[in-house]
């Protein structure tokens, strides 16, 4: 059997694919955080809880309302986005102009509250969520078999990332957002409703986390704690990519997914810490992150 550095090629390619898929999720999650941070200077600690809500909503939709995956793929992100919109409008907006640490504390508290509520009602054991029939089965990629749904989830995540990038970098609305990230006062002086822009951006970032949650539901166990397991890694990725950088979030999300996957093959003991080792390295060399600008 063919080998590279003493590792069988199929194993290597397999981990590469899984790494890419994880990376696509990392990218989508860190993208939402980065967009929010860029515009609001606010670290949304509740991002993991929003991810979990997306997955839980998908599961609840099927359980209580018999709404299938495709419906929930649309409805759950909308619901999470609406929730995010209310959080911004009713709570975070009041903290505007204060030290960002208050926003961090607020969203941290919110995370405990949301996770606590879901734990009370659903326990922590977790429930499986089946992929839709259309995407059942496996695909033969030639070098490995991969569940069809994995391929779909990866493609959908990448599409969401690209769509977000396009929206921000190539549209008029995106130019408001980029300008607002640089100089909110001037954007207001031009007559743009900045508070509305902030509210919609927060809702959009939340919906993106919700979408990631729905897409992840058939892959990992749906449980109230699924967000907090993931979010710390995502924070590290945002730091590596550069706080607030859209391209940085996408590229470092994908790259770290792959690096993590390959570490599992080459030296498994550090596969769960490699992201943090890289974060420490990047912070030493480039404190603003790979794609970030020094402020």
């Amino acid at each position: 059997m063919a080998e590279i550095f003493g590792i069988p090629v199929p194993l290597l390619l397999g981990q590469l694919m899984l790494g890419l898929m994880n990376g696509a999720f990392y990218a989508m999650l860190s993208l939402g955080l980065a967009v929010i941070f860029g515009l609001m200077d606010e670290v949304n600690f509740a991002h993991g809880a929003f991810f979990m809500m997306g997955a839980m909503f998908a599961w609840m939709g099927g359980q209580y309302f018999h709404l299938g995956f495709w419906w929930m793929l649309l409805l759950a992100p909308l619901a999470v986005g609406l929730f995010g919109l209310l959080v911004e409008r009713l709570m975070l907006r009041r903290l505007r102009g204060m030290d960002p640490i208050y926003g961090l504390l607020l969203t941290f508290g919110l995370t405990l509250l949301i996770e606590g509520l879901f734990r009370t009602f659903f326990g922590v054991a977790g429930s499986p969520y089946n992929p839709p029939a259309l995407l059942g089965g496996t695909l033969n990629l030639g070098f490995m078999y991969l569940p069809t749904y994995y391929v779909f989830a990866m493609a959908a995540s990448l599409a969401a990332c690209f769509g977000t990038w396009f929206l921000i970098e190539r549209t008029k609305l995106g130019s408001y957002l980029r300008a607002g990230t640089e100089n909110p006062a001037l954007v207001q002086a031009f007559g743009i409703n900045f508070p509305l822009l902030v509210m919609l951006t927060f809702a959009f970032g939340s919906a993106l986390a919700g979408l990631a949650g729905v897409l992840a539901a058939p892959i990992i166990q749906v449980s109230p704690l699924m967000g907090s397991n993931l979010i710390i890694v995502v924070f590290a990725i945002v730091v590596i990519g550069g706080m607030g950088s859209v391209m940085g979030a996408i590229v470092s999300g994908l790259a770290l997914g792959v690096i993590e996957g390959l570490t599992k093959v080459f030296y498994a003991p550090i596969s769960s810490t490699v992201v943090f080792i890289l974060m420490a390295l990047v912070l030493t060399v480039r404190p603003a992150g790979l794609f970030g600008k020094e402020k």
Partner: protein
Amino acid sequence: MNPVATQMSASRLQSAGSSVAPTGKAEPAALSIRDLHAWYGDSHVLHGVELTVNPGETICLLGRNGAGRTTTLRAVMGLTSARTGSIGVFGKEVIGLPQHHVARLGVGYCPEERGIFASLTTQENFLLPPDLPTRFPGFSIDEIHQLFPNLKARANSPGTRLSGGEQQMLAVARIFRTGARLLLLDEISEGLAPVIVQALGRAIKELKKKGFSVLLAEQNFRFSAKLADRFYVMERGKIVLEIERSELGNKQAELNELLGV
């Protein structure tokens, strides 16, 4: 009463007279600032500014560094931390309005630091300020490109890759096309090559022909001398002198002393 104050009230009467439209119906001033106080945090920067820009007038606000010219413009846009008094824009009171509503009354603002966005291309910077609900035609995009051909040639460059002069052109050009009819231009001639300053001067004259009202905050008296209909001089957060264009000759000495030329 000191002579300056007497002159001021005399010329204010004059300018109030000139604001009466031929029909006999009073047209509201483009900008009418009364007893304006403004603060940055704890520091009290403006101390009762009184200033009028009549429709179609080009007015220059002179003064030494730190006299409060920039703060006066920023206070109109709601960019100081607190303000009291009255700021009328085309007859509407601005104090108390949300920040993004000021522009919608027909105000275009060019900040001293130019405010070109690094993450936007020249074209995106140019098209960023949204159209305002004023029905004032302003300049078409083609007309602006005729005034500043460089902006068209460099449309796809990042805004901050432009030269200082091109960035200044971009900063003023982008508020010519929005329907704004009162322009607040802060230090637009500062630190630029003479050829650029001339281009900007030509643009200001075109503004006047189109019926824009313009308030220039300038340290460079020579730039504004040829453009403005009236001059205000600020010192320590107050207007201390108002000069009609026709009085420039007589008051040159007084002006020089105030400006420290």
